[in-house]
């Protein structure tokens, strides 16, 4: 026990063990976690990852922007005025980021477009996680033939290039925020299903689940009360990275004209016409793209940091 205190300078500090002189003596030794709760430990590891913290901060800002778009946007994003088309950025104080080909305020459109892109991204993430959870849980829990069929289905889905599938599906349906989110979710759940399945296969053999079996718990109960809560943590990383991918996918299909339909703005469809006005108004192509990149990057860094913080292999 004493070793546990000594080997962890941070904890030694707090427990007053510094008087032992231990903290300074073993600065290189790996921290032991006997006195630290799991949440704290994960949090501490996450905070060490500076880019992840920056990503997390940026995600919070982006979410605020999406929630408060109505309040922070200086203009109506749909208000047309052909007398003030193509005002360049930083020239007119009322239109800080300039205006587009229909005289709409670009800053307001970026805020509102961001709201749409993020809503699609997050909704698609939920669709992905829920689908992946169901398939992974059933596959891992029942095993055998069910597992075989579901996993071959998962492998098959992985063979299709996602953008191709998305575009075909998008051509079949009426594109709305919900339907776009759903088709993104339905074409990207495979990784989550595999993670959950592996988790469930491992957890199923643990004593507490075996005990539940012995007590005669039903399959549904074991899945929802024993397996699900314990399998969900690794999905957090995948979910975060999935938001990044979903935002990207939404921008791809909206850019190609099969996603969110104008006049409703999304970052993707704001770029659709930008190529035609390259010479006249390059900012129309630059700014939405920067927003997409920043958003995707923030979620990617956040996910990366979460992975480092949660990865059980690093805990050894």
């Amino acid at each position, binding site marked *: 026990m004493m070793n546990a205190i000594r080997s962890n300078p941070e904890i030694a500090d707090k427990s007053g063990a510094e008087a032992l002189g231990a903290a300074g003596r073993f600065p290189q030794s790996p921290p032991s976690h006997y006195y630290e709760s799991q949440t704290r430990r994960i949090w501490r590891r996450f905070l060490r990852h500076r880019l992840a913290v920056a990503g997390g901060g940026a995600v919070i800002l982006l979410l605020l922007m999406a929630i408060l778009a109505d309040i922070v946007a200086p203009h109506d994003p749909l208000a047309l005025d052909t007398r003030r088309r193509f005002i360049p950025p930083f020239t007119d104080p009322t239109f800080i980021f300039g205006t587009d080909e229909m005289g709409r305020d670009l800053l307001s459109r970026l805020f509102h477009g961001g709201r749409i892109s993020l809503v699609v991204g997050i909704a698609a993430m939920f669709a992905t996680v829920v689908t992946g959870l169901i398939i992974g849980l059933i596959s891992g829990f029942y095993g055998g033939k069910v597992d075989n069929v579901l996993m071959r289905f998962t492998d098959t889905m*992985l063979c299709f290039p996602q953008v191709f599938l998305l575009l075909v599906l998008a051509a079949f349906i009426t594109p709305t925020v919900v339907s776009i989110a759903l088709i993104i979710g339905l074409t990207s759940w495979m990784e989550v299903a595999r993670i959950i399945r592996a988790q469930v296969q491992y957890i199923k053999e643990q004593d507490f689940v075996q005990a539940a079996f012995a007590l005669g718990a039903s399959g549904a109960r074991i899945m929802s009360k024993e397996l699900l809560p314990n399998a969900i943590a690794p999905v957090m990383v995948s979910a975060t990275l999935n938001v990044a991918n979903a935002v990207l996918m939404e921008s791809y299909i909206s850019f190609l004209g099969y996603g969110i339909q104008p006049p409703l703005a999304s970052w993707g469809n704001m770029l659709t016409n930008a190529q035609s006005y390259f010479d006249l108004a390059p900012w129309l192509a630059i700014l939405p793209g920067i927003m997409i990149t920043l958003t995707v990057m923030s979620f990617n860094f956040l996910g990366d940091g979460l992975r480092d913080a949660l990865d059980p292999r690093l805990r050894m």
Partner: protein
Amino acid sequence: MFQYIIKRFGQAVPLLIGVSIIGFAMMHLAPGGPLAVYTLNPTITAQDIERIKHVFGLDQPIHIQYLKWAYGMFTGNWGNTFFGGRPVLDVILERVPATFLLMGSGMSLAIIIGMLIGILGAVKRYSIFDYLATTGAMVALSFPTFWFGLMTIFIFALKLGWLPSGGMYTLGGEEDLLDLLTHLILPTVVLALVLVAQWSRYTRSSFLEVIHQDYIRTAKSKGLSRGRILLRHAFPNAVSPLIALAGVQLPWLFSGALVTETIFGWPGMGRLFVDALTMKEYPVLMGMVMITAIAVILGNLLADVINALIDPRIRLE
């Protein structure tokens, strides 16, 4: 070895069947189903539709329909296009060379640069270069391919005027190799960006796993040069997971090529797909989805076989 290849082929068969079932299901999910072209035509009556259904066997049980359809796919009868009535397979296959040229050059560029960055990062772990490379890879992975394409056109074609902004050849010019290469540069770089990021990340971690093993230390203590250790000792062991990576990347490569071709007006399969989408050419769309999925299965198969050829451990599993 032979056994391994047979086994691996056996595993690909259920995938092919799965792909065909999903393709068939999507064909029936399409608005108007397989007869969309007729139902959309006002001069055709309901009786006509019934008759056509009978002629095409669409009034038969679904599994019989599937088997007939799968047989058609297998024998190269992929149906005809709505507009022009040309065989779908021909229409798609004539676009394959342009796409494969773009995908091949993008992948080669990505492998060369990505591996160099990854190896350097692994050798000089935690150096400034390594830090910049890993962070840079993360940033590159976050770039929307189409936007990166737009930006390269804006800078290198419009502002600097160094390279053409699109197409495969200069219109009305001589269609020679040099012209093709200058048109190939921007799309290749755009397609390669995300792949470079992935290759550098995977190469780095793969080399890190290898270069701390005992036999590398032995090689070092024998006094071998660093280059020789990396190339002759570390490389063969680090490279096999990377060959698998090339297979796994294929779906993304097709998606990326689609976006890149659209931006640059490159006359390949992706461009064909987007055009077919505007014209609601469902047979072409379905054919493309199927052909890309089959290419992915075959690509993964090939990667595994190559891996088994160079790495005896895999064969013995």
